[in-house]
């Protein structure tokens, strides 16, 4: 592969140094809102080698803060952290790059190189900003299908997504049933609860009320609503963590100050310091308008809406097999939300495997390396790889 070097391959389970790729998709993309992108830019990374029949490809759908850099490194700098799902993608890992060709696009509306609110609108020659069209999940799925066409991939061996990535994977299985063999839906749900929407709205209000937001035209004003975006991230981030995890990791420990009498140093708890750090770090690299676009997409998403609000009817269109996983302490997309998916799949007589992984990692459990999670994901995908190989040998 030309996009992978072995300079940083002292770790045999890492894909090493990867170079992001990109494509200008020139087929029109008709969005759910009615607007059309005549051309758009899509950034993606790939790991592993596509087989000659192009049947070993896996699509990874990223979550809210994710992007195309899911595994490996961009530089030789030993300080650099690996991609966001490096725990699961690599040689010998559950999503085994010795067996699969893994494709990870940055979704449209994003802010890591793919066309999004911070890109230049060709009609105005200014950043889209608040004028970026409201997207739906099907727009992501349609653009990913165009990327698949570009790469010559007719059928995905598997589509895998955690959290809102799982929603994309499910939407894929309904929109393009003959292009998906396996759909892995991890820590996800068929729609948001009112509580989920409430947290999203708090996050949006945090952004909008930042004076530097400038009605969304902060790029034109050469400003950045970092305070609001950091606060939005803090609100979101705390919903990804479990109570027991916060207890164990931070407890009521103090970062600064003291409770001693006669001491009036203001106190700061460890958890406060941690959340502030996470918020600031996120605000450095993320775009506020993207955050608004994606949280609104999440609120609006409802897998079964156009199937008379009946998920059984929705899934009856699917032809793939499903793997559903939830995490015991996830309260953002709780195990019960995954069970709803499983129940609908069973009622629709679709093949489904469901595991509820015991962990204190909350919603972020889907990015963890909890041994049982890694083991079951590995087993399932090993069978997927075997199916791919059987078809190869069967056809020859």
């Amino acid at each position, binding site marked *: 592969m030309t996009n992978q070097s072995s300079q940083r391959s002292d770790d045999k389970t890492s894909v090493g140094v990867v170079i992001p790729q990109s494509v200008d998709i020139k087929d029109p993309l008709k969005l759910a809102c009615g607007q059309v992108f005549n051309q758009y830019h899509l950034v993606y990374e790939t790991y592993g080698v596509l087989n000659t029949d192009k049947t070993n490809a896996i699509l990874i759908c990223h979550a809210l803060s994710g992007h195309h850099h899911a595994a490996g490194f961009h530089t030789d700098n030993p300080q650099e952290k690996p991609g966001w799902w490096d725990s699961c993608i690599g040689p010998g890992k559950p999503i085994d790059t010795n067996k699969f060709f893994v494709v990870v696009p940055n979704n449209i509306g994003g802010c890591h190189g793919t066309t999004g609110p911070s890109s230049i609108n060709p009609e105005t020659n200014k950043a889209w900003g608040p004028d970026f069209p409201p997207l739906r999940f099907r727009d992501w799925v349609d653009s990913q299908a165009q990327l698949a066409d570009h790469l010559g991939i007719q059928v995905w061996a598997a589509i895998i997504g955690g959290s809102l990535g799982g929603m994309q994977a499910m939407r894929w299985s309904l929109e393009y049933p003959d292009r998906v063999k396996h759909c892995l839906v991890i820590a996800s749900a068929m729609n948001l609860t009112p509580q989920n929407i409430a947290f999203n709205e708090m996050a949006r209000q945090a952004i909008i009320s930042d004076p530097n937001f400038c009605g969304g035209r902060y790029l034109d004003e050469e400003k950045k609503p970092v305070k609001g975006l950091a606060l939005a991230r803090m609100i979101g981030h705390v919903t990804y963590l479990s109570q027991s995890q916060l207890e164990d990791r931070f407890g009521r420990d103090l970062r600064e100050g003291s409770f001693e009498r006669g001491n009036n140093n203001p106190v700061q708890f460890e958890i406060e310091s941690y959340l502030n750090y996470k918020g600031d770090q996120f605000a450095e690299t993320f775009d506020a308008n993207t955050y608004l676009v994606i949280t609104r997409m999440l609120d609006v998403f409802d897998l079964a809406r156009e199937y008379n609000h009946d998920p059984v009817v929705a899934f009856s269109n699917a032809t793939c*097999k499903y793997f559903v996983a939830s995490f015991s302490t996830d309260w953002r997309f709780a195990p019960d939300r995954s*069970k709803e998916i*499983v*129940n609908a799949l*069973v*009622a629709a*007589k679709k*093949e*489904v*495997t*469901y*595991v*509820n992984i*015991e962990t204190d990692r909350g919603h972020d459990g889907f990015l963890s390396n909890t041994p*049982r999670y890694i*083991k*079951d994901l590995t*087993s*399932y995908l*090993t*069978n997927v790889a075997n199916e791919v190989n059987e078809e190869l040998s069967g056809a020859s």
Partner: protein
Amino acid sequence: MRVDFEIVKSWVPEGAHVLDLACGDGTLMSSLMKDCKVTGYGLENDEQSISECIQKGVSVIEKELVRDLDSFQDNAFDLVIMTQAIQVMKYPDVILDEMLRVGRQCIVTFPNFGNLGARAHLALRGKMPVTKNLPYQWFDTPNIHFCTVADFRALCKTKGYHFLNEATLAEQTINKLFKDIRPNLFAETAIYHLTKAG
């Protein structure tokens, strides 16, 4: 493969949509998928067993079997199977009703507590039976609702269930010789294939 599995398999219609309750490591379900072309799921709550099911390619659903199968619709399955697990259930009669609600037929296998060995253990030693088939001590056994062949038949009659097939199994010579004549005394394992009346 376990002998009770061989008999269960011989009763499963080809292509049936099957639910296997407490499916263990998925051996039965995997064999039914391969040889009887069944579709369906195994239900299990043990992590290790679930992992083994996934390795075998069995569609396994993690679920605690408590009292009901409320997430499943009426007659969703052609057949619901439960092997060697009814004695572990807190409400075996309710589970049996549930099996015949979500499935048109069910197959149940259980250890016969009326077997001579168990009776002798209690009668002669005055202690709760510990046999090859029932290896646990009274305090650590997962089996909380023992029954005999006669007990099980009586329950089915009370509920008005219809017997489609029945079979008994035994390993010990004496049990093998007499199990068909006096199943309640000599069967070590009983296997029942039931359907709702009518």
